[in-house]
């Protein structure tokens, strides 16, 4: 790496399904202000901006144009990247690259979504190939229902496993003041009362549509060492795409997740991920996906994640904390969702995660993003510089 980069400022808005009191620009301002305050910096200290969201969901065109004034980018360099669900993860990667390149000293990445202002499902429906299959797709729910069914069949996991994942998410979200759904769910039965979307996927198994924004300030080594708070060092990042011709049939493949994690872990000397990684924030749009994907990333063996879940091992105060923020099933402002994963890992490594702070000693954290036709972006952050 040409130059080390570190996260020195973290800002998040609060999230709701509707935030009618702010517009798209204003919701980004909230996150930018929070990040600057966290880093004890002024907007004048930021050299460049990396912005993104779901390109079609609010119906806005060239969203960065209107956003520029609200994020403080006027008179400064900026780039807009949009990679679907992984947008937030890509924003982080691009900010890391801007800083590591040596051209910019401090870069701000800003992701947001205001889903109530658009029509998410209408936007997502156009993902399918217009010539062949657009008429038979139904957005994300069908995909994750199939995934859940296959996982149950292959691993023997009983139907209440999805609900157990949700209970953990709810417990974590109640500890996170930024989470959108902080539900008082205490028993599996309560979750199982939620209606089926497509069996076996229930409403509470799936992520909500949220409005919110997240901003990160990434700095070069020299500036990071002057930062007010302890910098969180960026170890590595990777993107792997699976460009499936978009017929949503058959078993959803996890080849992208497997390849991303195995390459990332190999080149960073991680051979026992659950031991060497202290915390994981993974972008799982449904409870069932979270189980299968923990296996795909190599944290545990095929078909074993649900048993570890049964034993409660993924809670924030246990040996391998997964999504101590409550995860995507509690908070999902899409363009920000993946950036929040990075932000939450950074908070954990800094020891600033409040009531959701993991009890294990934080050393290295893993954050992942998922989207598109099966894309994974993953990052490794660490407390130590090397």
């Amino acid at each position, binding site marked *: *790496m*040409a*130059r080390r980069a570190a996260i020195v400022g973290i800002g998040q808005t609060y999230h709701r399904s509707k935030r009618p009191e702010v*517009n*798209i*620009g204003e919701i980004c301002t909230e996150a930018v202000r929070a990040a600057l305050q966290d880093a004890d910096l002024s907007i004048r200290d930021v050299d460049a901006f990396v912005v*993104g969201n779901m*390109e*079609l*969901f609010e*119906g*806005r*065109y*060239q*969203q*960065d*144009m*209107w956003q*520029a*004034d609200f994020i403080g980018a*006027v*008179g*400064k*360099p*900026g*780039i*807009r*990247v*949009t*990679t*679907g669900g992984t947008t937030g993860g890509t924003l982080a*990667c*691009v900010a*890391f*690259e*801007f*800083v*590591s*390149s*040596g*051209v*910019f*000293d401090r870069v701000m990445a800003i992701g947001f979504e205001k889903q109530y202002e658009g029509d998410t499902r209408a936007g997502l429906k*156009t*993902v399918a190939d*217009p*010539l062949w299959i657009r008429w038979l797709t139904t957005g994300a729910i069908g995909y994750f229902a199939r995934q859940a069914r296959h996982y149950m069949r292959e691993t023997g996991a009983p139907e209440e496993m999805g609900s157990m994942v949700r209970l953990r998410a709810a417990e974590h979200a109640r500890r996170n003041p930024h989470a959108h759904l902080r539900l008082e769910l205490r028993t599996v039965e309560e979750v199982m009362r939620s209606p089926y979307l497509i069996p076996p996927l229930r409403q509470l198994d799936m992520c909500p549509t949220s409005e919110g924004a997240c901003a990160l300030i990434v700095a070069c080594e020299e500036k990071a060492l002057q930062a007010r708070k302890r910098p969180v060092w960026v170890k590595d990042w990777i*993107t*792997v*795409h*699976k*460009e499936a011709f*978009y017929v949503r049939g058959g078993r959803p493949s996890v*080849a*992208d997740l497997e*390849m991303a994690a195995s390459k990332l872990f190999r080149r960073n000397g991680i051979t026992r991920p659950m031991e060497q990684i202290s915390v994981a924030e993974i972008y799982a749009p449904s409870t069932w996906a979270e189980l299968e994907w923990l296996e795909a990333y190599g944290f545990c063996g095929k078909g074993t994640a649900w048993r570890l879940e049964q034993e409660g091992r993924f809670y924030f105060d246990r040996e391998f904390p997964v999504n101590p923020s409550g995860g995507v099933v509690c908070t999902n402002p899409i363009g920000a969702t993946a950036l929040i994963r990075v932000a939450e890992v950074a908070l954990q490594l800094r020891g600033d995660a409040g009531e959701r702070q993991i009890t294990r000693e934080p050393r290295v954290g893993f954050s992942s993003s998922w989207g*598109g*036709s099966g*894309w994974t*972006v993953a990052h490794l952050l660490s407390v130590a510089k090397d």
Partner: protein
Amino acid sequence: MRRREAMRVGIVAAAQTRFRDYPEWRSHELTYLAVEGVLKEAGLPFRDGYDEIVTCSSDHWEGKTLSDIEHGEVSGAHLGPGEVKVTQDGANAVLLGYLKILSGHARTVLVTACCKETQVLDPSVIENFAFDAPYQQLIGLDFTQAAALQAMSYMSKYRIEREDLAEVVAREREAALANPLVPRADPITVDEILGSEVLSFPLTLHDRKPVCDGACALILAHEERARELTDRPVWIKGIGSCYEPHNLGDRDLAEPRALIRAAGDAYRMAAISDPSKEIDLFEVSEHYSYQLLLWMEGLGVCPSGRAVHLLRSGRTDRRGDLPVNPSGGLLAGVPRYVAGANRVIEAFWQLRGEAGERKVQGEPLLALAHGTCGPAGQHHCVIVLERGF
């Protein structure tokens, strides 16, 4: 923005489709034509020949969310190099490819850009959604109207006439006669331009870039890798990008401040103090006729208000000593999103002496490529290139 001497990044190969109406191809098929061309030229295999991919396209113009599923697939992203999509003018995709290599995260990057403009029936509907929702969108602005306001502002400040704009169009169309890649290969007179349909006063049909389809692709590489791949690399010497304020009323539309700043950053990185003396040719993104004048001034080719006289002097012609848009520019017909990346490619070909009939005189050493997006040029990107052989 710092100057960097430590490592050089080069463009080693470039390819593009011809720009025209392509009813027979889908947009990502156009991208594939460009990818196939660039890989052949660089001698690299599909997918395994590069570490990262930067694509550039727009969901709105594709009529499809996540347009990079297809553009990524034909670029080799399936379980291969990581892909990222830039949703701005294509010059920014080149800029990101450059920074990726400088960061050490990639050694070789494939950059692609594509737009199939002909599949959009009414661009003003899309453009209107770029304006802020509470105020400017509601009054029905589109990019042509924003450009017309900017044109009026610029023309009244510097006493430019409609005839001067028509001369710009005629000049670009004349230059395009030497460019086999663009659709507008027919010359046009000033009278014909002035007599054509007024889109938004003072801009006529011919003052606006024509609609067309196409794609382009480039291979960028780290210095050592670049020298392995070609003995005629072109180095990226400087980059800059910058936003104007969004509200048209908050800007002095006659002064392209963001462009001045983006160019200033690029010149500082490239250690250029007088662009009009040191840079041998300029490829500028004029989406509308008046923009050629305004952007030339913003880039420091000449002082404010003087571009029209400089053009008339003939110095900026292909055979002049300060060539601007020997390709015919965007008015010759280049798709948006592709536009800035295509400026880079034109500059690359000129520096390599591969620009065919549109080749400038002598052996140019430094060239500038410019891209812009947003209403009335709200965002600019400037890239300075240097012949590396």
